[in-house]
């Protein structure tokens, strides 16, 4: 594995720490930096690396979970793979990609988590309530605003130079 890819794990861990710090500043409203990182590396490096990094980020998220390990790993891994498959279809450096992909992935992640919560812990209808609850406009706007900056930062400092 080349150096930028090894560094990607370090970046994801730094995002994890930043995320923890942000949670104290904006409780329950902080954008999910880990997901932006996973989507970025998926779009830049392809599905396999997106999957591996997604599993790693999911594991970090699972550390804060309750019960068995694996749910967030599966969700983040899947989103990493999906971003990776989109690599050949979109231009990862475009502003539109940087805005839409992380916000879309976050919405999907919320839907998956709310569905899991409904299935395992709560009683109640699934669709369309889950899709409606997951449509958290402030959180999605937060992701959409922050992700272009993180994409730009990672493009500049975290990716290998292509000749």
């Amino acid at each position, binding site marked *: 594995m080349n150096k930028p890819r090894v560094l990607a794990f370090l970046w994801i861990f730094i995002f994890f720490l930043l995320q*923890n*710090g942000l949670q104290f500043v904006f409780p329950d409203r902080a954008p999910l930096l880990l997901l932006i990182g996973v989507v970025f590396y998926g779009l830049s490096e392809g599905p396999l690396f997106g999957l591996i990094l997604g599993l790693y980020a999911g594991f970090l*998220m699972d550390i*804060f979970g*309750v019960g068995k*390990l694996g749910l*967030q790993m599966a969700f983040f891994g*899947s989103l990493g793979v999906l971003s990776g498959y989109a690599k050949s279809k979109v231009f990862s450096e475009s502003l539109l990609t940087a805005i839409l992909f992380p916000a879309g992935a976050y919405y999907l992640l919320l839907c998956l*988590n709310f569905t899991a919560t409904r299935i395992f812990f709560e009683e109640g209808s699934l669709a369309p309530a889950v899709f409606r609850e997951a449509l958290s406009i402030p959180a999605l706007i937060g992701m959409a605003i922050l992700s272009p900056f993180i994409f730009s930062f990672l493009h500049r400092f975290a990716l290998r130079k292509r000749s």
Partner: protein
Amino acid sequence: MLKPRRVFFGIVVLFIFLVALPLSASVFIRSSFYSLVKAPVTFSKTVAQTAVDLFFFARNAQENRSLRKTIALMRFDQFKLEEFSRENVRLTQLLELRRTLPADVRRLVFARVIARSPAAWSRVFLIDKGSRQGVKENMLAMSDSALVGKVVETGPSVSKVLLITDPNSKIGALIQRTRQAGILFGTSQGECRMKYISVDTALNQGDLVETAGFGGFFPKGLIVGTVRRAWKEPGQIYQVAEVSPLADLSRLEEVVLVE
């Protein structure tokens, strides 16, 4: 080239493996990892907290002035409370009632919050005390003299506390005024609700909710919050109450663990 089918198969196999892991193994993996991340996570929290303190300097100064006034008022209230307390002791002796609340609480552990769950759907935080300091699973966490959650996992020097607003949280509670029992649970939207309350009970806004302490599993009589509104679920024979926690769950910094 990686084929989509293989990737999907790989995820499924990994997921099945993790789901098949016993819960104790999952807890062991997590607790081992807490010790590893404790130092960097504490550092990130300290940096963020310092930034917040500097940014909100003016607001904190204002709050400080306001708190000084509150303390002065509270001193006056304290004298009154002491009088009530003495009167309560006398009346309790007269009625030969058992004092439940202080007798139930056997031990206190003070801890700092070092990390919060990054996920919007999960309300969990890590504290800087673990089994070495005597923290055990199912100890209740309190802040501002009100219940905020319970310990769900413990590592050697770090423990995990599940907030009462997390969907995984379920605690026996009762309405203080009516003594009607129910189950207090969290929702995915971060609300705290109490269900299985009899429909015959008339609930008022502001009714205090406290821990039930059934079976001696949790201490009895710890205040949780107040009833915000209540309604009957369609097709059910009980009513549900939305409870506003007394403690500010979004700004927890220190907690007291009670056993």
